[in-house]
């Protein structure tokens, strides 16, 4: 740890996508016109895949090192050196960041390939790949930056690319509004993030170590214990809470989750890459990366886990009633992100990161499968107008089904290994309520996911005959990506088996050097370690999943239960709550937007009534005065007044001519005045 391996390979992982973005943005339009879209596809995919190849190479180089020496540093240049703060543009590769890099470039690369088919008919093909490459670059900066400011640069960069890609089809007002919403909601979180960085720097400076380089923060963090922060909180708690507020924005957790469902306005590959697999997991990554700080603040950990659990459960219940195929997946993403936050929030950092990885696999597969369906139906996203697609799109169906099994946590698919671990660890660390929420959430997840599968792929086709005729299987590039992701969703879980099956967890072992601060070890040791209890809880989770599946099967495939009847349950209260997304958008509109608009209106009213009123009053006073003066005039000093008015008229008529409009004339005036001033001063002095 003291002497990280220096390398100059890591920079190319970051710079290749940037290069791809630069070429696409600068020359993309010309290249596309001259040589066709093939060149753009080659550039766009090539840059990311080359980065993936380098990342694989560095992974093997890293595996060759001893486990506690697996740290690589690529220091490019001194960024700035201000007031004791010395920051470099440097990339820090450790087991945690290599996992993220492989997800970003690997899953990202697959989604790039998928996009070559999906976006094929779009005129601004080059712009799409330019933004996608730039996003990859920004995300890599986020995970590889060796200091918090560099991380923040990436953090903002992915936000910008997300904004641009949500509004990619910017001629439609809905899309640009969704982009604006995502950007503005994220600003709230980002502000908290910046506050946290400043506070952390101030705190570390107070104990004599002014630094923001993450590995140095890790070394000096214990010195912060007991330091007083702001708002009456201890410093570590304040910093971690503020950072987590930032994470709720980026990772769409309650209360800042409202932007993610709207973000589905973007093209589907974007939803898969940015709003499911990578960017929204940045918050989880950040908590895992700063685990040494979070482990020192039990209060924050509790907040993280609670928010995560609430989000996981509530978002899942919203997913039950949505009818837009992508919106269901969006709420499912929010819910799964909640699981990840519970994982890192109870101190099971490796489990959280593991779920991040498997989620990237199966959620990307689900989104891309949904994209394939939308593509086949010519842009239709309403599940009520789908059905029976499994016959015409068998490959899409099989891959979608595999990913569904994975997200529901059916063994041996990847989701079972990762999600169950989190659910168990929530209980093992003594959070019964959180466990209960997650457990119920797992059942709801199974219900809405199988509801989606049955509505989309089973039953009768409910769209137009024209659509029915047009339905086709995914083109080759899309099919290849779907299969690859489905395989990953199936076998990806074997990197970390639950403890009660076999003591085989190379993934956790690999990440171990990152999560080895004293505080983190203490949190880990405080948990319950009981194999038989763990088995029992796995059984309970499976029971919930099976119940959810069965309910969905009875309702949407066999039709034994009526969905309409179920929605009437308890007078439809629950249905309306879920369908209305708990009215949070409406609440924000009433609580924040409406007062703001009211304030603006009040200002306008003040201007229109009070200020204008004063002016009008003055005017009417003048009128009255003039009337009085007029009386005075006409009856007492008529002649004098007439003379005055005539004199004024004559003077005005002459003075009018001074405004000649001749610039030269004005300049004569200025010069004359200057000379008079000079002469007067000269004479006065003499």
């Amino acid at each position, binding site marked *: 740890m003291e002497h990280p391996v220096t390398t100059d390979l890591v920079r190319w992982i970051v710079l290749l996508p940037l290069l791809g973005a630069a070429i696409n943005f600068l020359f993309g339009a010309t290249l596309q016109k001259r040589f066709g879209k093939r060149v753009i596809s080659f550039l766009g995919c090539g840059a990311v895949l080359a980065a993936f190849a380098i990342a694989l190479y560095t992974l093997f180089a890293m595996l060759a090192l001893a486990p506690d020496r697996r740290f690589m540093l690529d220091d490019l240049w001194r960024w700035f050196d201000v007031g004791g703060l010395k920051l470099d543009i440097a990339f820090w590769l450790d087991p945690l960041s290599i996992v993220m890099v492989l997800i970003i470039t690997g899953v990202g690369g697959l989604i790039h390939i998928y996009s070559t088919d999906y976006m094929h008919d779009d005129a601004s093909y080059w712009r799409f790949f330019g933004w996608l490459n730039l996003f990859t670059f920004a995300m890599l900066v986020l995970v590889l930056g060796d200091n918090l400011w560099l991380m923040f640069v990436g953090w903002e960069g992915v936000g910008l690319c997300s904004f641009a890609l949500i509004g990619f089809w910017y001629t439609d007002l809905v899309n640009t509004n969704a982009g604006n919403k995502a950007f503005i909601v994220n600003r709230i979180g980002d502000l908290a993030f910046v506050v946290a960085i400043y506070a952390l720097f101030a705190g570390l400076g107070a104990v004599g170590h002014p630094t923001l380089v993450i590995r140095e923060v890790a070394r000096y963090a214990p010195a912060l214990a007991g330091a007083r922060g702001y708002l009456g909180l201890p410093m570590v708690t304040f910093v971690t809470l503020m950072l987590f507020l930032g994470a709720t924005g980026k990772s769409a957790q309650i209360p800042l989750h409202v932007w993610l469902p709207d973000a589905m306005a973007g093209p589907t590959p974007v939803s898969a890459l940015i709003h499911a697999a990578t960017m929204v997991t940045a918050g989880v990554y950040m908590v895992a990366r700063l685990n040494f700080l979070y482990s020192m603040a039990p209060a924050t950990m509790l907040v993280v886990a609670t928010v995560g659990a609430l989000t996981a459960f509530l978002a899942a219940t919203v997913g039950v009633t949505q009818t837009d195929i992508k919106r269901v997946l969006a709420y499912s993403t929010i819910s799964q992100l909640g699981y990840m936050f519970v994982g890192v929030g109870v101190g099971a950092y490796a489990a959280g990161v593991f779920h991040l990885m498997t989620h990237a696999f199966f959620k990307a597969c689900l989104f891309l499968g949904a994209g394939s369906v939308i593509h086949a139906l010519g842009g239709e996203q309403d599940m009520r107008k789908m059905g029976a697609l499994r016959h015409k799109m068998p490959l899409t169906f099989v891959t979608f089904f595999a990913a569904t099994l994975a997200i529901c946590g059916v063994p041996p698919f990847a989701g079972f290994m990762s999600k169950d671990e989190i659910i168990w660890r929530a209980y093992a660390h003594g959070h019964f309520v959180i466990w209960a929420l997650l457990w119920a959430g797992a059942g709801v997840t199974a219900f809405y996911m199988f509801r989606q599968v049955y509505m989309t792929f089973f039953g009768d086709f409910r769209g137009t005959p024209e659509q029915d005729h047009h339905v086709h299987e995914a083109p080759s590039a899309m099919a290849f990506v779907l299969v690859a992701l489905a395989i990953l969703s199936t076998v990806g879980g074997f990197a970390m088996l639950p403890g009660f099956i076999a003591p085989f967890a190379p993934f956790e072992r690999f990440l171990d050097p990152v999560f080895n601060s004293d505080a983190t070890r203490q949190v880990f040791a405080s948990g319950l370690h009981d194999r038989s209890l763990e088995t029992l809880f796995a059984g309970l989770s499976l029971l919930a999943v099976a119940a959810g599946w069965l309910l969905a099967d009875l309702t949407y495939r066999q039709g034994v239960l009526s969905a309409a009847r179920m929605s009437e349950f308890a007078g439809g209260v629950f249905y309306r709550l879920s369908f209305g997304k708990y009215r949070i958008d409406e609440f924000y509109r009433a609580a924040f937007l409406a007062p703001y608009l009211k304030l603006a209106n009040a200002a306008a009213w003040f201007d229109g009534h009070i200020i204008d009123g004063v002016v009008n009053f003055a005017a009417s006073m003048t009128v009255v005065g003039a009337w009085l003066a007029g009386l005075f005039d006409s009856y007492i000093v008529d002649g004098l007044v007439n003379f005055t008015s005539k004199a004024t008229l004559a003077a005005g008529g002459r003075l009018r001519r001074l405004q000649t409009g001749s610039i*030269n004339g004005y300049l004569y005036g200025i*010069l*004359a005045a*200057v*000379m008079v001033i*000079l*002469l007067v001063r*000269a004479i006065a002095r003499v």
Partner: protein
Amino acid sequence: MRMIFVLFAAVTVISAGVTAFSRNIVHSAFALLGAFAGVAGIYVLLAADFVAMVQIFVYIGGILVLTIFAVMLTQGLTGVNVSNRAVGRIPALATTLIAGAVMLCAILKTPWYAAGARSIAPTTYGIGNAFLGAYVLPFELASIVLLAALIGAIVISRQESRE
């Protein structure tokens, strides 16, 4: 040294004279080049190396090129009508000469404070420090002024769509 000064001064004054008296606006514009270059030479003579470079970059490279562009845009590239009509020469000359006489008196009569000449040394370091030190506020304001000018120029010169 006096020779060099006289040389630069002559270039400046003669070019400025052509600018002021020429009947052809294109000649005026190109004579302005000589005036700016001569002034830059004077700056070098006065140990203001950085200001001289700025003078060349901004005046000759920027303002002058812009001016010539404007001449061509408004007169037509072929220079069909390059009139530079002057009016009121006699009163202008009289005013100018009177003002000049007054100011010349002021120059010669004022007892200037003289603390000795500056030594010849690079000034960029000192100017840079001054900009980020005592003058940082005006410096930032200047950037805002330039931005406003940029936006203003775009807004003013953009042709309104005739709908």
